[in-house]
């Protein structure tokens, strides 16, 4: 009798723990859904690569689009880059779509944000998906691990200011 009681309690505890674990796994998956974590490595570009590409004369210059916050863009952005709208919001995606509507689908385009750590950026994945759906074949996403300040400005890469 006692052993059945103990075994029943253990089962209940195990079930509760499993539920907690499933909830934890579920929340992690939810946190990563729609984030940069889903962008294939082949479509990513490191800041050092882009800095070198922009520096080299005669190289195939990409169109660089910032798809995050305008306030952050105004403080510092990659020289020559354009602000294209916060892609986490519908208005931002619309602005991005309009900006690239008339471009040749073979144009080399680099998207970046840098508002938040890579896995938590709300803008980069929606921007990437939109550009893919529009048929851009030479699309790269700048892999900013922590934020634009740490991974671009503090590395000494060139910046411009203003809107």
């Amino acid at each position, binding site marked *: 009798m006692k052993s059945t009681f103990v075994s029943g309690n253990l089962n209940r505890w*195990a079930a509760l723990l499993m539920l907690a*674990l499933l909830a934890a796994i579920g929340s992690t998956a939810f946190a990563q859904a729609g984030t940069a974590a889903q962008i294939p490595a082949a479509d990513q570009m490191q800041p050092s690569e882009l800095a070198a590409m922009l520096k080299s004369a005669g190289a195939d210059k990409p169109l660089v689009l910032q798809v995050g916050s*305008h306030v952050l863009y105004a403080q510092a952005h990659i020289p020559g880059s354009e602000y294209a709208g916060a892609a986490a919001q519908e208005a931002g995606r619309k602005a991005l779509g309009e900006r690239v509507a008339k471009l040749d689908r073979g144009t080399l385009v680099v998207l970046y944000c840098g*508002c*938040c750590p890579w896995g938590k950026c709300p803008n980069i994945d929606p921007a990437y998906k939109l550009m893919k759906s529009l048929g851009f074949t030479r699309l790269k996403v700048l892999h900013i691990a*922590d934020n634009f*300040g740490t991974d671009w400005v503090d590395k000494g890469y060139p910046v411009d200011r203003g809107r």
Partner: protein
Amino acid sequence: MRRSLLAVLLLCTLASAQASVQAVVQTDVESSAQAKLIGKAAPEFAREDLNGKRVSLAEYRGKVVLLNFWATWCASCVTEIPAFASWQKKYGGQGLQVLGVSMDDDAPPVRALYRKLKVNYPVVMGDEKVGELYGGVLGLPVTYLIDREGRIVRHYQGEVDLKRLKREMRGLLGEP
């Protein structure tokens, strides 16, 4: 049964340890320009808050100020706000003043979240000028602790370790 129980416990511990490590890594990321402000007078700025009241950082001299740069689209930022609101309620009488600076492009989503989270401290709309004063706010959240003399004593880039921040804030308040 015991084995499966142990396995579940082990998995839970591993998941929790991974989350802790991630939090520590983000907290330790430093922006050099922001870190250089430590020990210096907090740059003055004045703005209207979401209720239309003029807020000036200088008016908080004599208080411990927790200055938090955030945005509605920043998940880590939104996670921190309920804790800051509870600290404002609990420690406001002892001289704590939380001040939020939203780096959103527009005020409407900020107002909506302000109401939804029942924020009990002033929030002003930031811009590039305020951001540049504070070393360039080029990733969020960013939090500064300012002492009663108006000096920046701590800087946090990324989601903060709330326990650590609370301990340091209480220290500045002279709490045991």
